[in-house]
């Protein structure tokens, strides 16, 4: 299977704050790599045959690539806004396709059933119409609205939350959501996915929030709760690879973002972790 197009992308390979001189052995798209802090305190990533790999440090994480990235890592302007709190949630390994991890993050219809009484609740299961477009070669879903009993740690009681989703890279998604303490601003929650193999990934959620009252520990526990509820679902999805063949499944209107994401992957030949022909 070809995965040339994805070789040149940036991928998260660790938390910058957790690097040490001894290094951390991990993998990127099947190749063993080592992520360490060098004598000057910079991040250093080494490939399987000892060759140095490209490195960039951004959004709390170390990023690398097996190929030669043609462009800089995507921008998240909110990461430079004063007053936001940046939360390194940590890593969770999931036995699923890295593309499936991203797709699940883009889905809201599962909220009442998987994140019951937190991000959704029966009988409020309707996904209202929303917009999906390709904006500067990124997938964007906007005007997504959903009733949520406890949308964020800083929310008390149920509110209708508005979301925007953005896919700036094949294994990264950025979520903007109503910020209860600061109407008019958006909380930013990201999912950075490190593809270890086509059916195995390390997921590094990261957040940039306006929330001055909740402790960091509470914020991390909240986000870990949500993500670990997803994990058991993700590990049971069949087929393991994300189907890009439209013959495989019948999407509904609520799946617009997923449809756009799959088409965008296919158009760019971003197929590492994808199933191209229905089996």
């Amino acid at each position: 299977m070809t995965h040339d197009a994805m070789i040149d992308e940036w991928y998260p390979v660790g938390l910058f704050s957790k690097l040490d001189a001894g290094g951390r052995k991990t993998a990127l798209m099947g190749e063993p790599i080592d992520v360490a802090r060098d004598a000057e305190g910079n991040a250093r990533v080494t490939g399987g045959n000892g060759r140095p790999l490209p490195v960039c440090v951004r959004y709390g994480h170390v990023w690398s690539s097996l190929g030669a990235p043609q462009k800089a890592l995507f921008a998240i302007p909110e990461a430079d806004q004063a007053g936001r709190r940046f939360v390194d949630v940590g890593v969770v390994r999931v036995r699923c396709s890295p593309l499936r991890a991203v797709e699940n993050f883009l889905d809201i219809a599962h909220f009442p059933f998987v994140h019951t009484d937190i991000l959704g609740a029966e009988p409020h299961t309707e996904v209202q119409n929303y917009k999906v477009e390709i904006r500067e070669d990124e997938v964007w879903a906007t005007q997504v609205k959903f009733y949520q009993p406890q949308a964020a740690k800083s929310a008390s009681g149920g509110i209708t939350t508005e979301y925007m989703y953005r896919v700036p890279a094949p294994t990264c998604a950025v979520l903007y959501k109503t910020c209860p303490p600061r109407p008019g601003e958006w909380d930013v929650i990201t999912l950075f996915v490190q593809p270890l193999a086509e059916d195995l990934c390390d997921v590094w959620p990261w957040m940039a929030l306006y929330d001055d009252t909740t402790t960091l520990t509470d914020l991390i526990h909240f986000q870990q709760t949500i993500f670990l509820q997803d994990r058991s679902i993700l590990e049971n999805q069949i087929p393991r690879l994300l189907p890009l063949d439209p013959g495989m499944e019948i999407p509904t209107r609520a799946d617009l973002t997923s449809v756009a994401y799959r088409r965008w992957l296919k158009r760019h030949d971003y197929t590492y972790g994808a199933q191209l022909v229905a089996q």
Partner: protein
Amino acid sequence: MKLYDYILSPSCYKVRLMAALTDVKLDIRPVDFHPGAEHRGAALMDLNPAGSIPILEDGDLILTESSAMLVYLAARAAPEWLGSGTTEETARVQQWLSFSNRLTTSLGAARLHEMLLRPGDITELQMHGIAALREVEAGLVEQGVRGMRFLASDRPTVADIACFPYVALAPDGGVSLDPYPAIRLWSRALRSLENFIEMPGIHRLHELKPAPYIEPGGA
């Protein structure tokens, strides 16, 4: 009553679940497990030299073993959860309370390895996990022959709560529960209990669809 808690810890969940089922209000104190490793810090090591969580504090009483916490909650608020008190049932409760540690060191360690990248020999851990699951399955089947639905009694006891979380989360460590029908029925019975609460990875039972209406006289 204060519980030093981590949301992803099945042992902490045992205590939260027991408290919910017996209607005891806990003062939850989240521990900065990641990234701060607070459970290994001086303040918590003073409370629990083992450096583990949960820790339950109630006045002068400090408990660091989750099975003891379950017994404490039950004895205080709902003694029926300790079993009927017959010789055999009392022994069975104790048997499973001690046994639950084997689930922690096998299935629990496999889960930490597969999910949070903790070092360990995964094949070995899964093998011990499967052996422990087979004992739980056999125990439940034998109880069924005695006409009882739960591990030590015909009603749920602290023994069930001690064993349930690591069993239910076995798939998190790459161990399937598909081969164990008695475990799945038992899990369903526990999840149907009034005031049951879930943790990440253990989903609550959702309302079943109403039964289909069949025309009288139809096929």
